Structures are given as C-alpha cells and as structure tokens.
C-alpha cells in the first residue's frame, strides 16, 4: 500500500522556499509570474493502515502550527484541478537516485512503533501563479526546478506502483573479455566501448600479460586495471615522461622530464627538507607537526566534472570525498575546517551565449554553494574561507576545489596492514551510484547518458559520514585497527587494492552490504557509492571494532582478508572473478612520453590614459566579480561550528570586511592556532604560467603572514586544473607552471605536502573545444604561535599611520584594473623570494611584538583596493599619498601605482607610539608611510603630482564592493 501525503503551509505563514524559487525564475528572465508556492510530498509504502498513515502525519511529518496536510492512498489520489493562471509541476527523484531524507524518515516512523514501513520517496509540488506559456514552463522546470539527471516531473497518469527500487537477485555469471584474440583496432574498441580510457600501449601491455598467463581477463580484472591505471588514480601525466619545448624571445630550449611530479613538486619539498614535515605525498593528505602532542593534515581535492552536470550533488560529494581523505589520513584525523575555491563562467552571461548542454553559471554557482553548505554544515565542520573566480572560459567546466584540514594525535600518523588482518567496509551501503553514470537511473536520458562520466548523479549523505567520523575516532583511540582508507574514485577497487598492494587481499564481494538487489560482482567492486571507509582490523579486535560501530549506528561488515600472497583475489559466492598479480597491477603500466610546448605569447601592455580623478576606476575595480564581496556565499556556511574561530572570513566593525586568511585555534584552552589561505589567479597564467604559480604561492604565504602566521612554519598544497594534456600547448603551460612552483617554493623554503591534478577540463561544442585557462590553486596552512596576537585587516583608530611595505613595480599585466578596461597586458607580477621573505619575517616579528594594529596584503586591485577595504571595514576615513609608495616603475602614472598587483606587499596600520619600533624592524626593507587613518567618511588619495586623484566617501566604496553578488 502506498499513501500519498501532501503538506502545505497554512495561510499567513511565509513560504520562504517558494520565494527563493520565485527569485530563481526571475533570474531566468521569465516574466509574468506573481508568486510560487511549494508543497512537500511524502509517499509512504508498507503494510500500514490509513489510521497509521494519519498518525505518521500528525506525530512526525506535519507541524500543525504552520502546516496543513492531506493523506490519501494512491488508488484514491486525484490531482487537484488546475485553475486558470496556475501551473503545477511535481518534481521527484529518479528511481535509483538516493532520496536524501528516506533513511531518517523511516527511522522516525519506526520510532512511532510502526515497523511495517518499507520505503519512502519524497517530491515537491511547485505551484506557479501567473500567466506563463507552456514553453516557458518547460524552461522553468528544466532550469530552475529540476535537473533531469537526477529528477523528473511526476506524471499523474502513470504513478509508480511501487516505490522501492528492486531488481531480481543477481546470479553470478563469470564473463571474460577476449583480449588475446584481438588486434589493435579491436583492442581500442574494447577500451572505448567499456569506457576504460586505456590507450593502445596500455591495452597491448595488458594483452601481453594475459597471453603469458594463457588466458583472457575477466571483465572485472580489466576494469580493475583500467581504474588503477586511470589518469584519476595513477596521474599518468604528472608521473610520465614529457618532452618540453620552450620558446621565449626567439630562443628555443628542449628538456626531457622524467616525472614532472618528482622533478618539481616533490623535489622542492626534498630540497627544503623541513623537520616538521611528518608525512608528505604518500598518504591521503600531507601531515605536518602542530604542537608537542598533535599533527595536522591538509588536502584539497577537485570535483569539477560532476559539479558541471549536477552542481549540488557534485559539490556535495566533493566535500564528502575530501573529508574522507582526512578521515583516512594516517590512522584517521578529525576534520577541523573546510576551505573551498570555485571558478565559474560570468554570472551575467546571456542565455544565448551558453554552449549547448551547459548550465548557466549563476545556476551552477548557486548549486555548488548549496552543495558545500549542505555537507559542511551538516558534518559540523566550519568552512572558514575560500575564493571565487569568474572567467567565461569556465562556462563548460566550472572548477570546484574542496579542501579540508584535520588534526590527529602524533602517534597516529603511520599505518601498516598486517597479514591476516580482516578487510572491513563501514558506512554507506553499495549501490549503482557512479557506475557508468546516469544511464541506469532513467529511461529519459539518451544522447547525454553516453557522455556522463561516473559519479555524476550522486547526492551525498553527510549525516552518514558524520556517524562514520564519530565511530572512526572512537575505534582509533581504542587502537582497534591497523589501517584505514576511504572509498573514493574507483570505490572498493581502489581502497582495497591500495591496502592490499604490498600483501595481497582476498575479498568476497557477495558480503558487501547492498542498497538493493541485482548488482553484479563487477558493479559491487567499482561502485563509487559515498560515505564508505575500509579498515584493516586484526582478528582479535574485530568483535570490539564491530560493537563500537554498532553503538554509533554505523554498519560495519567483514568482506575479506589480507593474505600475504601478493595477489588481488575476488570471489562472488565462491566463484573466483579476479586473480591479479599486485605487481603487474601497480607497476605494469607502460610509461608514456607526452609532448609539451610553451611559447611566450606576444602580448603588449596597453597605454592607459588615466583621467585625473580615478574615482570611477576604483569603484569599477571594487565591483569586479573577482574582487567584490562574497558575503552572500560566506554567510551560508557555518564558519564557527566547533567553537575554534579566531579570525573569521568577514571581519571589521560591521563584520563585512574581507579577511586575508582565517585563523582557528583547534584545541580548547591552547593558544596555538592555524591560519588557512588560498592563492589563485587565472589572469596571470594567460600571460605566463610560471609567474602565475609564483604569484599564487606568494599570495597564499603573505595572507597567512598578514594575520599573524609564522612564515617559517607554512606548508602548501598544489592543485593543477588544466585542459587536455595530450595537446602540447596545454601540457606546455602546465609544465611551466610546475617550474614556477619549484622555484618559488624553494626560494621561500615553503614545502609542498600534498597536491592534486585534474586534467581534461575541456568542453566540446560543434567539434570545437573550449579549454579552461590553466589554473593553479595554492592552499597554505601556517602555524600561528599565539592566536591572541592575531591581526585583522580593518583600520582601527584615527591618527594611526598607514605604511606600504614592499616594492611596487609597473606590473599591471593580468590586473583587474586592465580587465575593467578590456585589456590583458603583458607585464605580469613577478616574485623576488629573497626580498619577499625578508619582508615576511620583519612583519611577522612586528605582529608578534604587538606593533601592528591592522595588516592587509595587496592582491587583486593593488593598493587601491587594499586601502579601500581597510577603510570601509574599519568604518574610518583615509588620506594617502601615492608619491610615498616605494615605486620602482618607469611608467610614472597614478593608475600604475594604485592598481599594479606586484607581489609581497602589505599595507600596515601602526600607532604613533610604535612608529619608531616598527621602522627599526623594517630597516633595509622598502617601505613608505603613505598616509593616515582619519575620523569620518572621507577617502582621499593624492597622486604623484600632489593633487587628489581619489576623493570619495567610504560608504560608496563599500557599496560598490558589496553590490555585485548581493543575491
């Protein structure tokens, strides 16, 4: 029996959900709608009576103070008559897609004593009031109300007979793939048809291996090899060989690189050789020392492709994934904060300019932000900062970087699987999620289904993962296991495979708990269902391990054993379906050599003709999407849960100023803190990726230093997002960016501790490929020795001096200012690590001595933006003089001094009392007293000629900065 419950707001109760849907319809440019109402639907299935269904409504589903409901059995259901000027669409999840509230609603019903409930599917009824054409209604349904990859419009004439997704029980039929008998053409066909993404050399290597064994591989063996050797898991490009040709000023250099990763990123860390780097590059996250008892670990992952297709689910599972990386670092760390960085197409992009098949950037952004909010907030992990960039080249491939920091006792860093340990899977059940993407979930998906990659249609369950976290910390602290790792891409195949690499493992796939019947052995093995972790538990501790999990309502199941025979053996109901040699699996991948070419582009700097008064220019720069306030996003994240917040993402007298880095004190009662920041700038990379990397590293470091971080205790992560690396120009720019990483990290003695790459970010439209601009994200984690000494960027007191520390060059290339004039330029900001480090150390000392009242680094928009932000965040005025700025350019114009984005610079506020002490610390460094903090609202900057070039009220600056993304 199925009962259908419809719940509506009572008259007079604000339908806030309806109002936000109304707003997103207005965003589509569709007029004629007066209002929107949203009603909630629960379909309840089970052997229950009408009386019980009513009890469920009254005691669980309905808030009778604000809601009305009607409950009917599905046979008696008749949809309400649709009146004139009323449009109704009921949106439900597709079969097979997890309904996020099903699990807890069933629990709630069972709590009422009604045990015969079987399944629940929810839906939402959108009622639109107004005059809308059918065509527009279609647009609204597809662009504002639903995503057809996971949802559909309910057809009242063909209601489901049953809610539960059932399939007949699977009977094992072992299937082999004929490789031995295949020629090259056939081999490639097998790779393509099976979505294996293996190239011809790899297919031939696999064929040769099985020829030696005198048998063909099973489908499962071939899938396992493909997963293990995939770009995603094996990082073929970064680990392979590259022939790199660089042309600059008509000179050409050729270089052969054996593993870009080892010769740049890893080499930097080895050369720097810091004793506080505890575990780098070989675990799920990099680990550094925090204090005498604890270490911290940091990882940033990308989840780009899934987020392009289903922004909410993509970002949601992206966060879930990186949190599991932290849970699976060493013997497990407790996540203490998230940091997230996104790149989108412009939110103003006209709908007719959108490439076919892409979602509008504004919709992508709203979905991604909701996905992050949902997962991070529900897990109770503060999202303490991030960045958002816009560039139209991201329209087909938005970038979603999800970062997480964890803390762990120092004796929990290293782990080793022992022979005889049991393999235990915990957390979520396994379904078809992420296997061959969306094809299975709905018949409606046709052309698109083919191109949808795995993982596209998943929605996370943060509460499941929170339970896993609670159980993990408990079992870790009782020493109940020897190893743990997460199920990420590749699912069990990568987790169990990685754990068994040294010893060998036997897994019985029929023991894996399933969401529903019908999965075959191969699907179980490669499913990417979320919220699962795999543990290796010694047999004498298994009872205790399972009992602690059960105390926390976490499902835990023994699925295999680590054997010691160095083989990967998989069984399904006794039939062996996989028998692979671990050495072949992990070392048999043939090395490839890729071509890479970088030619210095022939850009020139435009001749700007700055007007005498630059008010308009400053306002335009402040309103640029890459500069303006992201408060709309930040407020939706809980950035204070766990009670560790010291410097919040928004600071100042009105809690709306942009903090440089965020600071948390992760241990109650300890003054030791962590500062987290991100450096990202795609504009510089368009001119020269080397200096993009250098600038991003500089930015990440100086933000940490600016809030009080110790410049000698900073570690960084790299995250490369590029286009197709098989195209020499894409790879060439990436190689050059990696060189920039090496030089700058070594120059600053700031080690990389972990990293990630996401390649093939290109979007095909009409056989033309749009590549994202090569984008590097540098994320920094720095130790703050005493959080009581931390500094914020808002001006504090009238009468104080404002210093500019560091040199300004004519480096407008790639600047926001030139972008507002429609130009890119050529003179990209460079980095001098020797001078930069001296500045960082001096400033850090001044902060520790309490001499600094406020500090703000100069980034996008240069001194102009930094000074404006300090002023309105502190609610104080400013007078400043550009002729006092240490300026080394020959191009002596006000706009260059005001908006140049030279690196390693800070604006510092110092009181009269501390002036001399502060200047003593800066001896030998370039600095100038450029102005004073003033009472009142006036913001005045005098130009190089001594005449005012900016003269404006701080409130106008604030408004220009806050307006663009005030959604």
């Amino acid at each position: 029996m199925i009962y259908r419950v419809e719940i509506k707001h009572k008259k007079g109760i604000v339908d806030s959900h309806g109002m936000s849907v109304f707003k997103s319809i207005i965003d589509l440019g569709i007029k004629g709608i007066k209002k929107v109402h949203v009603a909630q639907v629960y379909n309840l299935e089970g052997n229950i009576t009408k009386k019980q269904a009513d009890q469920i409504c009254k005691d669980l589903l309905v808030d009778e103070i604000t809601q009305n409901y009607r409950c009917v059995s599905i046979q008696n259901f008749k949809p309400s008559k649709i009146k004139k000027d009323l449009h109704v669409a009921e949106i439900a999840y597709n079969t097979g897609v997890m309904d996020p509230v099903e699990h807890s609603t069933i629990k709630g019903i069972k709590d009422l004593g009604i045990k015969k409930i079987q399944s629940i599917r929810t839906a939402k009824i959108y009622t639109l009031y107004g005059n809308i054409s059918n065509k527009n209604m279609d647009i609204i349904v597809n662009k504002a109300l639903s995503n057809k990859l996971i949802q559909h419009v309910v057809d009242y004439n063909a209601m489901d007979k049953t809610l539960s997704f059932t399939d007949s029980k699977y009977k094992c039929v072992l299937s082999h793939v004929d490789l031995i008998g295949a020629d090259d053409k056939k081999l490639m066909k097998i790779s393509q048809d099976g979505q294996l993404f293996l190239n011809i050399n790899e297919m031939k290597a696999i064929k040769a291996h099985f020829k030696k064994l005198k048998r063909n591989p099973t489908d499962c063996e071939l899938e396992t090899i493909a997963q293990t050797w995939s770009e995603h898991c094996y990082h073929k490009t970064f680990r392979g060989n590259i022939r790199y040709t660089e042309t600059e000023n008509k000179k050409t250099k050729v270089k052969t690189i054996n593993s870009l990763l080892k010769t740049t990123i890893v080499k930097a860390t080895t050369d720097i050789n810091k004793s506080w780097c505890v575990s780098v590059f070989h675990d799920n996250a990099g680990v550094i020392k925090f204090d005498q008892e604890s270490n911290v670990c940091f990882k940033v992952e990308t989840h780009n492709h899934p987020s392009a297709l289903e922004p909410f689910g993509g970002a949601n599972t992206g966060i879930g994934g990186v949190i599991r990386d932290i849970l699976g670092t060493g013997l497990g760390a407790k996540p203490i904060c998230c940091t997230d960085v996104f790149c989108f197409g412009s939110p103003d992009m006209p709908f007719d300019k959108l490439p076919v098949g892409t979602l509008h950037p504004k919709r992508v952004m709203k979905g991604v932000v909701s996905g992050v909010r949902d997962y991070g907030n529900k897990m109770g992990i503060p999202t303490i900062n991030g960045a958002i960039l816009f560039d139209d080249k991201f329209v087909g491939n938005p970038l979603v970087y999800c970062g997480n920091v964890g803390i762990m006792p120092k004796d929990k860093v290293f782990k080793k699987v022992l022979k005889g340990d049991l393999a235990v899977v915990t957390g979520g059940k396994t379904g078809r999620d992420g296997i061959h993407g969306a094809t299975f979930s709905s018949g409606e998906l046709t052309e698109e289904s083919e191109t949808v990659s795995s993982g596209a249609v998943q929605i996370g369950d943060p509460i499941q993962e929170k339970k896993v976290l609670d159980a993990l910390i408990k079992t870790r602290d009782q020493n109940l296991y020897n190893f743990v790792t997460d199920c990420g891409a590749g699912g069990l195949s990568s987790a169990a495979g990685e754990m068994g690499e040294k010893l060998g493992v036997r897994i019985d796939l029929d023991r894996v708990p399933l969401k529903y019947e019908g999965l075959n052995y191969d699907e179980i093995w490669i499913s990417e269902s979320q919220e699962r972790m795999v543990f290796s538990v010694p047999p004498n501790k298994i009872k205790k391990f399972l009992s602690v999990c059960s105390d926390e309502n976490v499902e835990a199941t023994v699925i295999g054993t680590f054997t010691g025979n160095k083989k990967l053996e998989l069984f399904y109901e006794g039939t062996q379906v996989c028998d692979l040699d671990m050495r072949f699996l992990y070392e048999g991948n043939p090395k490839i050599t890729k071509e890479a070419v970088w030619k210095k582009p022939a850009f020139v700097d435009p001749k700007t003709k700055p007007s005498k008064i630059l008010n308009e220019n400053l306002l335009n720069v402040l309103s640029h999407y890459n500069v303006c306030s992201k408060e709309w996003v930040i407020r939706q994240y809980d950035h204070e849960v766990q009670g560790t917040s010291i410097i919040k993402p928004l600071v100042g007298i009105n809690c709306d100023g942009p903090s440089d880095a965020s600071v948390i004190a992760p241990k109650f009662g300890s003054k030791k803190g962590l500062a987290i920041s991100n450096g990202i700038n795609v504009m510089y990379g368009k001119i020269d990726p080397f200096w993009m990397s250098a600038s991003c590293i500089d930015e990440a470091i100086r933000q940490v230093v600016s809030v009080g971080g110790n410049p000698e205790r900073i570690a960084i992560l790299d995250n490369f997002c590029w286009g197709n690396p098989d195209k020499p120009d894409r790879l060439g720019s990436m190689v050059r960016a990696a060189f920039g990483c090496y030089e700058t990290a070594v120059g600053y003695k700031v080690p990389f501790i972990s990293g990630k790459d996401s390649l093939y970010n290109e979007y095909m439209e009409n056989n033309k490929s749009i590549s994202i601009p090569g984008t590097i994200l540098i994320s920094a984690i720095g130790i703050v020795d005493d959080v009581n000494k931390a500094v914020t960027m808002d001006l504090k007191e009238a009468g104080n001096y404002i210093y500019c520390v560091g040199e300004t060059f004519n480096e407008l290339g790639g600047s926001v200012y030139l972008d507002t004039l429609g130009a890119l330029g050529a003179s990209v900001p460079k980095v001098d690590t020797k001078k930069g480090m001296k500045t960082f150390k001096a400033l850090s000392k001044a902060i520790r001595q309490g001499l600094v009242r406020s500090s703000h680094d100069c980034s996008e928009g240069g001194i102009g933006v930094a000074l404006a932000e300090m002023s309105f965040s502190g609610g104080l005025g400013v007078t400043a003089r550009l002729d006092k700025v240490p300026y080394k350019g020959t191009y002596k114009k006000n706009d260059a001094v005001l908006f140049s984005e030279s690196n390693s610079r800070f604006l510092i506020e110092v009181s009269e009392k501390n002036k001399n002490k502060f200047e003593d610390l800066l001896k030998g460094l370039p600095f100038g007293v450029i102005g004073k903090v003033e009472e009142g609202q006036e913001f005045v900057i005098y130009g190089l000629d001594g005449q005012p070039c900016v003269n404006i009220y701080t409130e106008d600056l604030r408004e220009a900065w806050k307006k663009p993304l005030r959604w």
Partner: protein
Amino acid sequence: MSKKVKVIVIRTAGTNCDEETAFAFKAQGADTDLVHINRLLEGKTKLDSYHILAIPGGFTYGDDIESGRILANELRLYLIKSINKFIKDGKLIIGICNGFQVLVKSGFLPGLSNKKINSFKDLPQDVTLISNDSSKFEDRWTYLKTDGKSIWTEGLGETVYYPVAHAEGKFVVKSKKVLEELKKNKQIIFRYCNFSGNKPVYPENPNGSIDNIAGISDKTGRILGLMPHPERHFSFTQHPFWTRLERKSDFGDGALIFKNGVNYAKKNLIKG
C-alpha cells in the same frame, strides 16, 4: 569536599556542537559527559545521575522532515518519564539551536500546560521554529536583549552578542494567547535587537521571528532554549571584532550562561 556538578551533553547522528558545549560546562567546573542518545534509550546511562541536561546544536538526523523533529520524538516517546522526573527534581535543561528546536518540538518548551504528564499527548506543541524568512542558512552575529526570568541568564548584561547559525530559526506561536502567556509568565528570555538595543530589522532579526524572539524558558526558568550560540562566544577571541576591542576579560558574553547553570546546580542540587 562537595560533589561536582554533573552535566550530560547528549548527541546523536548529526549532532555537531557537542564538544564546544561540553567544554563550556567543563571550563566552568562541571563534570561533563558526552553521551549518545542510544545509551539513554538502552538504559545504560541514567539521566538521574546528572544535574544538567544539555542538548547541543547540529543537524540531528539531517534536519530531515524538519529540524529537531526526529530527536524530539525520541525524547517524548521514549524518555518522557525520566525527563519529567528530571524536571520535577528541579534540575536544569538547556537546548541551543538544534537543541532548542528539539525542546520546542517535543513540547518541553514552553511547557504552558498545567496537566499532569503521563504521555507525550500531554505535551502539546504551542510554539515552533520554521524556515528563516530569507530561506537560507545564515551564520551571523546578533545583538540580543535580555528579558524574562531564568536562572541561566542572571547577571547577564542588558544586551549580549551571540552568533546564530541556522536555517530554521523563525519563532512562531500557535496563537496570540500563547504569546500573551509567554509574556505574562516572563518566559521570553532573549529578543533580537539592533546595536543600540532597539527594534531590529533584517538581518538584525536574522530569521523573521515574531516579537523578535530568540530564546524562551519554561515557567520555572530552569529550562532554557535559544537559537543563538552562547558557547560560540565563550572566550574573548571568539568575538567577531575582538581585535578592535580592549580585553577586559578572557571570557565572552556567553560564558556566564554556563557558569550560572553550574553555580545554580552546585547551590541547589548538591547536598552537603
């Protein structure tokens, strides 16, 4: 030597402000246990052995159906007797954010009915907390005007500054009569206000609560529920612009709430 005040902070799937809430009580001298609701349901842990029950913030069961509903049902269906005894014994309860939602939806707050409580049917729900008018989750700091009569807020300044972080915090009453009664009984403890203590507009009232209500108590003043998070302003450096302020104490506006609870229990609930 006097016995120590014992605090139970309950947690379940999705609770996430448990550790900082426990720390706030611990730092004020209480013995604090973090206990999974399962242990109370199984009877392995007895509510009776504690003086203060704290229901912390979070997203219990994902806020599915509506915030706090499923945990509220667990309390009113399975623990009603022991909670009732706990209240009758003069003990203390605090619910913060999700904990407030739970207390309201289980009917323990505002507790207007004078009926003897035998089953959950005797605990009618008179008020509720629904989606913010903005329809968004928002984390922001709010000024709160203190009012009413509760042992938890004694000595608190006329206005305090706590952050809110919720999507469903709009306080709504069943009828005008309920609101009148809350006023008459001095059960309205916190109201959102602006910087100078006057009537707020959005976002000073972050959710559209009627009468700007942010927190209420029961008739005895011993059960407190509030949407804002006092445990997030426990120490001075949690203030969003502490770097602009002179440090007069290491504590923030929220610390006194926990101190009041612990001191009250010490004085009234511990013998000898």
